[in-house]
């Protein structure tokens, strides 16, 4: 068990290292003059030289990567090319704001989707299932910028209950942001729910068809008990990675939603940095989101081990096998 845990955590670390390597190389080491790309054709020689130095392009790629990685490990994410401020501070604030919309969206979205997925599976083929399936298919098919645009139209313009966009800009305080989080949260829930509902529905249907679900029913248990105790825990297993992907995607900065609602989170920062070609900030965002992705997946795997004793890799079963029944 402990061995398995350590192995799993090491795997995560290796994945992260690889990801950081890819990000660094994709942005700094590819052919062509990055500085030229960033500054444009009519940049002066001095500006180019300055930029190369700022980006560490003078050194060999490996030395540059090592220095950059070392910085990350010590909490130094570099300085913004635009504002000259430390990247860590910029990202910290934006990430906090993203959490403010992501956490409620995750909590509501996951709980709601799992319940709806199970409900659809139980009523398979009937009206409720058909409507849930059709709505989730539609939600999957309509991009979030459309959902967000429509929500803005309906709520903020036709019946102004919520503020449609945040006007305060980057230094908005918590009090300013709170009323503005609801529409983004609703959009995010709508977009992520579809995948989780579909996965949970299909997994629940599969699990309901297992021998052990039938056995539980045929020993006289109520259907509710069969469902909650015997079906749902196992049905959750294949859905956990789906949830993990959705969470990682949410925390990774919901670029579109934040842009439309003018919400100062990680996604909006990403778009700004692309427009201003602020490479250090983009690299740092990539690392932060990759870390989120890897950690969320790690947590999903650990949860799976918690739910499913088979994944804990006990060695007892093997020890028990040979001495069976020989007496």
């Amino acid at each position: 068990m402990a061995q398995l845990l350590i192995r799993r955590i090491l795997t995560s670390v290796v994945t992260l290292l690889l990801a950081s390597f890819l990000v660094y190389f994709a942005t700094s080491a590819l052919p062509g003059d990055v500085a030229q790309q960033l500054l444009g054709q009519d940049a002066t020689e001095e500006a180019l030289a300055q930029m190369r130095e700022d980006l560490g392009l003078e050194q060999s790629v490996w030395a540059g990567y090592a220095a950059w990685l070392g910085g990350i490990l010590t909490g130094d994410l570099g300085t913004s090319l635009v504002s000259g401020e430390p990247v860590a501070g910029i990202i910290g604030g934006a990430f906090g704001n993203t959490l403010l919309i992501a956490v409620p969206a995750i909590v509501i979205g996951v709980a709601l989707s799992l319940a709806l997925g199970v409900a659809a599976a139980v009523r398979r083929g009937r009206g409720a299932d058909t409507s849930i399936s059709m709505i989730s298919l539609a939600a999957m098919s309509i991009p979030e910028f459309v959902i967000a645009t429509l929500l803005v139209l309906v709520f903020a313009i036709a019946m102004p209950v919520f503020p449609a966009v945040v006007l305060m800009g980057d230094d908005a305080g918590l009090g300013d942001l709170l009323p503005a989080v609801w529409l983004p949260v609703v959009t995010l829930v709508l977009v992520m729910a579809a995948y989780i509902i579909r996965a949970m529905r299909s997994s629940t249907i599969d699990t309901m068809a297992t021998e052990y679900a039938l056995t539980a029913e045929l020993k006289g248990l109520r259907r509710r008990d069969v469902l909650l105790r015997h079906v749902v825990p196992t049905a959750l297993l294949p859905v956990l990675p789906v949830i993990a992907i959705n969470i990682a995607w949410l925390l990774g900065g919901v670029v579109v939603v934040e842009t439309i609602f003018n919400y100062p989170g990680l996604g909006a920062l990403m778009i700004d940095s692309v427009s201003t070609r602020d490479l250090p900030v983009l690299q740092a965002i990539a690392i932060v989101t990759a870390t989120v992705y890897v950690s969320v997946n790690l947590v999903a795997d650990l949860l799976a081990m918690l739910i499913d004793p088979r994944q804990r890799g006990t060695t007892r079963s093997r020890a028990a096998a040979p001495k069976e029944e020989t007496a």
Partner: protein
Amino acid sequence: MSTQTAAPRQRRITAAGIGAAAVVVTILIALLSPWLTPYSAVATNADAALLGPTPAHWLGTDQYGRDVLTRTLEGGRYALLVAFLATSIAVTLGTLVGAVAAYADGWLDEAISRVLDAILSVPAVLALLLIVTVFGQGLWVIVLAVSIVYAPAVARVVRGAARPVVSSGYVAAARARGERALPIIGREILPNVLDTVLVEFAMRASWVVLLVSTLSFLGFGANPPTPDWGLMIQENRTALTVAPLGTVAPIVSLAVLVIGLNLAADGLAKRMGVDRAARAAA
């Protein structure tokens, strides 16, 4: 053991048929669009800006006086082209890598899996924006970028589908004959993951269309004045209350295409016995 109930399956086939029809019609319209209306999709006309529906302009005009119907009909071209190219590359690449990983089963499999995970760990939109920042917004840059972003997911799914094939008797028989890895992958493994690959194609295509539209919406995909649904929604949404059709028309077109692709993928998955919902993870 499992008894197939045929009634819902038949309904599925019809839904898939509708989906496929929607996709085909969208593609046809995109191909024929230059000859479908008398207007140019890009020429501006300040005198006719933001008109409502008229007999001359069925869906009205946008803020530059361009015919919304014309732009909507042509608006699928960019997304469809990128989606077709990028999905083809991503699925081909992913299938090969996935099949090799499944067959290799050892350190090579482990190494491939780690690299795939690392690529997947950077969110798709961010990866695309990074690539676009460095390489610009050219069509092929976006096609290749989208391919690289989606190939690992395809590879993971194909690897999963190929694992049971690798442990089957016919692959063992080929190995016992002494056949080399490539013929085994080509002759025995790939034909048996074809179902999965086809479903992947339909499903990834729908995601790529969404992603490309999102990029255009954000201003990093199609360049103005190219007619593109994502870009149109971005341009026209400020005039949503004055001339709503300018936004609604591309939204409906985009939704029809993606719902069509999704229905087709669902139907395909159902008919081929591939569980599609369970793999939204990859």
